[in-house]
């Protein structure tokens, strides 16, 4: 609790600006969705057939997972505020349209008949009778939509639109609980505020229609005034994922060493390459074994000052589990040191570009080592659960691990893949929900152990001491064992589009720094 207050007071400026961004994203999307949604609802209310068709259409839009929708929008309209608002708008549309439609079609038919009999035109019926009478229900729809959108808006930080998601996802990837809470608590409060505000409007709307409409209009107006789009202030735009931006060994240290005055857009890790490819950003962070480097025709910038720490991949396992099934270690001996950088990049490429499933890539790899395997069928009560993070390499390694264990030990294996960050997966391992997963030495050292800065500097220079420290600390602190490393070093890398890098003659990070400074 104390730590949380400390975090809040140290970072209140940043948190406040995230709150504002979040509020604006939500309210702007809600405002647009309200205006358009009410119009659509009113239009379709007079045509039943059209209404059903239309409602099922936006129902389908609603079922698209939010991250998928954001990913889908990037090549079309890029990253930043606009696609975020568009996505939020799409999510807000359904409840508003449906409630407007229901509100209007449920009005007592005698009231509408009386209006017609008085000689009202269709437009007058709509303005004077239908909309005012439907307002409580319309507001209920807006209320639902706003609460949904406060939640969905956290995802918008993944496409560089800012908001409280920056804290939440940053915290998840950095294993920083205070940071997660600094995003989550204001987001919950904001959802409650929206709920309360529209609830109140709904309550008074029965008697004070004009008042509640004016209130809403005022709110939208204030919001629009406050909405000043940010303009890029550097020659090139960087797209980084939140983990990279916030990590000591990520951009923070990189900037200190190389000096990179650049505008940064925060993006979800899976969206980085598409953003780079569609020229929404000019360079991104990535991993040196990434198959997408080849797929998207990118250039790795040389780390000419040897900044990035080593990230050797290895399976980590609960020591307890290892004691119970010692045969697992023997199984893993068969692949230790058997994957080099080129091989790993090739496997990643197979999955990313050639759309081969991670399971098949794993089979091909193990077959090349004369290990006969098959796809993991997923036993109902597995003895060993393999975890993975949500990027290609982690998926492939999880499949390799699983198939290897099944083939060599006969244990029943289950997979839990796609964890959204180191913290989540490591906690799962710590709690015994996952028994084994592929981790990287650098991540284990810097993100999980979080050593003092002096120790970091000291150990990063000496690979042997680093490994000893890492293995001992894990055994002591968590009861987790690092098995033999697989061979490749998947460290961070900065990459650009090959064409642009060649045009600007940027080969190394120092070149990039020089270009940015001029």
């Amino acid at each position, binding site marked *: 609790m104390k730590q949380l207050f400390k975090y809040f007071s140290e970072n209140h400026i940043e948190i406040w600006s995230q709150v504002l961004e979040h509020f604006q994203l939500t309210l702007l999307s809600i405002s647009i969705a309200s205006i358009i949604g009410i119009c659509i609802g009113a239009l379709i209310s007079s045509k039943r057939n059209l209404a059903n068709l239309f409602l099922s259409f936006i129902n389908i839009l609603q079922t698209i997972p939010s991250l998928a929708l954001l990913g889908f929008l990037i090549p079309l309209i890029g990253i930043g505020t606009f696609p975020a608002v568009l996505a939020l708008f799409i999510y807000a549309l359904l409840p508003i349209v449906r409630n407007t439609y229901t509100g209007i079609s449920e009005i*007592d038919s*005698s*009231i509408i*008949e*009386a*209006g*017609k*009999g*008085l*000689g*009202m*035109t269709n437009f*007058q019926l709509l303005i*004077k*009778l239908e909309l*005012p*009478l439907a307002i409580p229900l319309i507001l209920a729809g807006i209320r639902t939509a706003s609460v949904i959108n406060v939640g969905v808006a956290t995802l918008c930080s993944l496409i560089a639109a800012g908001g409280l998601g920056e804290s939440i996802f940053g915290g998840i990837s950095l294993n920083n609980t205070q940071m997660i809470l600094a995003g989550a608590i204001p987001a919950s409060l904001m959802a409650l505020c929206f709920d309360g505000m529209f609830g109140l409007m709904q309550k008074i709307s*029965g*008697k004070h*229609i004009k008042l509640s409409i004016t209130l809403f209009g005022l709110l939208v107006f204030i919001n629009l005034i406050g909405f000043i789009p940010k303009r890029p202030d550097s020659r090139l735009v960087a797209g980084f994922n939140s983990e990279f931006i916030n990590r000591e060994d990520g951009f923070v240290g990189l900037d200190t060493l190389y000096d990179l005055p650049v505008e940064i857009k925060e993006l979800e890790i899976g969206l980085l390459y598409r953003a780079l490819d569609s020229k929404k950003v000019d360079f991104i962070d990535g991993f040196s074994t990434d198959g997408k480097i080849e797929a998207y025709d990118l250039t790795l910038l040389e780390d000419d000052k040897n900044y990035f720490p080593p990230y050797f991949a290895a399976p980590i396992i609960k020591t307890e589990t290892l004691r119970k099934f010692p045969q697992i270690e023997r199984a893993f001996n068969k692949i230790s040191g058997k994957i080099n950088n080129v091989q790993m990049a090739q496997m990643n490429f197979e999955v990313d570009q050639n759309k081969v499933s991670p399971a098949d890539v794993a089979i091909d790899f193990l077959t090349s080592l004369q290990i006969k395997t098959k796809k993991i069928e997923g036993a109902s009560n597995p003895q060993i659960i393999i975890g993975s993070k949500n990027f290609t390499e982690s998926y492939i390694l999880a499949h390799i691990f699983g198939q290897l264990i099944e083939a060599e030990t006969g244990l029943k294996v289950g997979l839990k893949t796609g964890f959204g960050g180191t913290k989540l997966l490591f906690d799962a391992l710590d709690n015994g929900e996952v028994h084994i997963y592929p981790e990287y030495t650098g991540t284990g050292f810097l993100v999980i152990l979080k050593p003092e800065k002096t120790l970091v500097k000291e150990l990063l220079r000496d690979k042997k001491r680093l490994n000893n420290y890492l293995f001992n600390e894990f055994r002591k602190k968590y009861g987790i064992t690092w098995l033999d490393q697989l061979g490749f070093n998947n460290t961070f890398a900065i990459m650009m589009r090959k064409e642009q890098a060649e045009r600007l003659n940027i080969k190394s990070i120092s070149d990039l720094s020089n270009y940015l400074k001029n």
Partner: protein
Amino acid sequence: MITFKNVNKSFASHQVLKNINFEINQGEAFCLLGKSGSGKTTLLKMINKLIYPDNGSVFIEGKDAKSINDISLRRNIGYIIQSGGLFPHLKIRDNIAISLKLDGKSKDQINHRVKELIVQIGLDENYLDRHPITLSGGQQQRIGIARAIANNPSMILMDEPFSALDPILREQMQNDFINMTALKNTTKVIVTHDIDEALKLGNRICLLENGEITFIGTPQEFLSSENQNVINFLGEESNILKIKHTPMSQMGDQEKLNYIPDTYEEVNDQTNIIQVFNSNNAYVKNTSNGNFYSIKSIKDHFITHLGKVL
């Protein structure tokens, strides 16, 4: 004046109006009487073009309704429906004023007219700032009437105006309606399934059965009609307690007094009497000369002459 000429109407394959021809005169109260499904409401809604005829024409003041703009036609015709159809989100003041506002009247004019109307319908200004939901059914129906006549339409259409009210209130509203001087020269077309209401409110009654007009005439003509449709309608109506043909010669003096106290002197022993009773009223017809006599209320009648309450 309203004229129907060869009007037909079908919904899907069901023909609801069959070759309708009749006229409604300026200033009269014209009752469309019939059971549900007889087509009376459809007929009414053709006058303000809420429903269009399949073929044939409706003439309003001699002009084919087809050639009149729907909206401007409706502005000139008051329309009152069963449940009042008041707008729940508007105050009584704004409910009454709506047609005046649509006509673009000034605020002062509207205010003046609204105050005038609320008194005419027997309520006071305190009601103006209330919402419809706070009023009783009868009061709401009065507001409905005020709203319909606010811009002095030349005719008003009423669809079962008092059916939703309880019997005592209904009778009172009917009486008030008859006495409403503001409506004296207005053409009134009233749809009802209630014989009493038709007899009481109508200058003429038009009986509709399965989409056809089977009778048009005054209430007196209606009750004295030998038309089999009329007799059947009277007989089938469940609230008619009894229709009895009794030669006057077979009645004792006291009995004659009991049944026809107001008109005794006009009846002699040669008169054949048909008595029609229902819960509220009794009507008596002299079949020999076609004259019709009413006894105000069977309740009064029994109290006065028999000394007990039914």
